[in-house]
């Protein structure tokens, strides 16, 4: 009897606040269970992504890919895990030990905690003739977007510190590149969200999804913002075409050159977790979150399904892009961020604000699409003009370090600045 009672309260606590029903203890236990559940799902999705990346890339290159462990090779992540666990954990003697050990954990953490504010399912509620979308998430912060941007800002540390602590020139270059790249794209990431906030009038992700449930996805209102956010998310996760920090043809393996065994696995997992979170964010901010053109009214499971499918689509897009588009050069990456995305995002904000201020709803539909078209035309013209011109090899920010004598490619673990 008591057990049944407490089970009910714990279950009630998972999706309700104590003010609305359920006991405080049940609420706390329910929340903890929910956090554990979400964390595990995120990690398992990350592990599955490792498998699907290999399978999808194999499929794109007309190979088979891992198919030995389990059905269709689905248990391959487990085998990889076993391999990582039993591999010798090498800590080179020249590293900065504390930071070296901490860095992989630091890089995984921000990605995982971001999931706290993402509404992964919800239900359509009715009171009288008022219908609204009630999102379910771990914490519906009213500053959710700021929280996300903060965590995006913090995710730089793992890679940067890992690169620094390894005390090897390739790692250091990878770390420096990562910090410059991620700071730059954080700006366009943040600026791309602003039009969304202008239109919803709220920083809470629950409100943003609710708005989209009632009015339509932001993908259609703000295609340019969507594009900038998506590409910036790629740069933030350090995935190809923006994988400067670990570009293996230039930097051996970049920031994780000196890492092995489980520490390397954590970096690896962090990258896939960042991908998962990035996809979930794109879905939440621009693709209606768990809503699906009214189908979500069928029940909470439909919301969850819709959210999961959309997220998996964007995860697939990550892989698709990685195996399709070659790596940018560093100066191209910086030019794209600073002289294209940031001005365009600012213009987009200006236009959206103007459209909102004039109070003509039609403008909201027309202006962003018009801006996207104009941007595409300009990009096309510039691209055509630049294709013929030979561009000088321009600066890596790290070249300031060497002032003339660039690092000669020496041993894999050469000392920095020698």
């Amino acid at each position: 009897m008591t057990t049944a009672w407490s089970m009910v309260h714990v279950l009630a606590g998972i999706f309700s606040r104590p003010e609305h029903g359920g006991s405080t203890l049940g609420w706390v236990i329910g929340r903890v269970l929910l956090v554990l559940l979400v964390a595990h799902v995120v990690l398992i999705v990350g592990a599955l992504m490792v498998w699907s990346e290999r399978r999808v890339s194999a499929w794109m290159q007309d190979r088979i890919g891992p198919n030995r462990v389990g059905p269709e090779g689905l248990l391959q992540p487990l085998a990889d895990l076993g391999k990582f666990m039993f591999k010798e954990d090498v800590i080179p003697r020249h590293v900065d030990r504390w930071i070296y050990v901490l860095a992989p954990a630091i890089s995984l953490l921000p990605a995982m905690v971001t999931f706290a504010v993402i509404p992964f399912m919800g239900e359509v509620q009715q009171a009288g003739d008022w219908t609204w979308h009630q999102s379910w998430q771990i914490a519906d912060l009213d500053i959710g977007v700021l929280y996300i941007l903060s965590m995006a800002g913090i995710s730089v540390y793992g890679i940067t510190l890992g690169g620094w602590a390894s005390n090897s020139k390739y790692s250091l270059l990878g770390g420096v590149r990562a910090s410059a790249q991620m700071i730059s794209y954080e700006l366009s990431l943040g600026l791309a969200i602003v039009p969304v906030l202008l239109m919803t009038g709220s920083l809470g992700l629950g409100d943003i999804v609710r708005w989209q449930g009632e009015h339509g996805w932001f993908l259609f209102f703000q295609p340019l913002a969507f594009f900038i956010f998506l590409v910036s998310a790629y740069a933030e996760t350090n995935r190809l075409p923006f994988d400067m920090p670990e570009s293996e043809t230039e930097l051996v393996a970049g920031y994780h050159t000196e890492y092995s065994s489980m520490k390397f696995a954590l970096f690896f997992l962090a990258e896939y977790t960042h991908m998962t979170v990035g996809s979930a964010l794109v879905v939440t901010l621009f693709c209606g979150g768990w809503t699906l053109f009214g189908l979500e009214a069928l029940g909470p499971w439909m919301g969850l399904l819709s959210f999961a499918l959309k997220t998996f689509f964007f995860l697939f897009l990550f892989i698709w892009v990685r195996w399709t588009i070659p790596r940018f050069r560093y100066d191209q990456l910086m030019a794209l961020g600073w002289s294209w995305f940031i001005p365009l995002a600012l213009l987009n904000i200006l236009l959206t604000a103007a459209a909102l201020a004039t109070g003509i709803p039609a403008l909201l539909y027309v202006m962003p699409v018009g801006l996207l078209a104009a941007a595409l035309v300009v990009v096309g013209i510039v691209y055509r003009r630049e294709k013929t011109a030979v561009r000088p090899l321009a600066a890596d920010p790290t070249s300031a370090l060497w002032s003339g004598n660039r690092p000669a490619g020496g041993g894999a673990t050469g000392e920095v600045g020698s």
Partner: protein
Amino acid sequence: MATQVLYILFGGMALGAALLAVTRKNPVASAIWLVVMFFGLAATYVVMEAFFVGAIQILVYAGAIMVLFLFVIMLLDLRQQMLEGKPTTRLRFFGVLAALLFLVVGVVALGDAKDRGLLHRAVTPLPREADIVAANPDATSLVDLPLDGTAGAIADEMFTRWVLPFEVASVILLGAILGAVILTKRRLT
């Protein structure tokens, strides 16, 4: 009750991290401890129910300023510079003395003020949103409600009473950008 425990926990964390940041030899370790301090302070703000400031603290300090610091430390590769010159004992002695005196004077003044009963105030809980809505039945939107500490309320304050300082701040930032570019560029072409 829980709030007080949390406040002491996070405040102490911030203080300890600040001390460590100041005393570490390795500049990167200092930077990391400073990040810990920023987190401690952000948590303190959240405990005091200043949510917006807490988020901005992480966003600006931990997410931007300290990354810039780390970037510069790595760019200069300060590993060889770890053994910085010792300041003269005189400067060191008077520095610590000044800081301790400052602290002692502050704490004594604080105790005196408490004795005179000047410090009867405390950070009290914000009214809950539901209570405010119940108390203002004729309000048509959340904007009309006195919701304290939320982003909306702070924006309201910032863009009405403090518009001019806001604009001046943006000009200062512009100046800082120009200054940083000019200082670090080897030659302006």
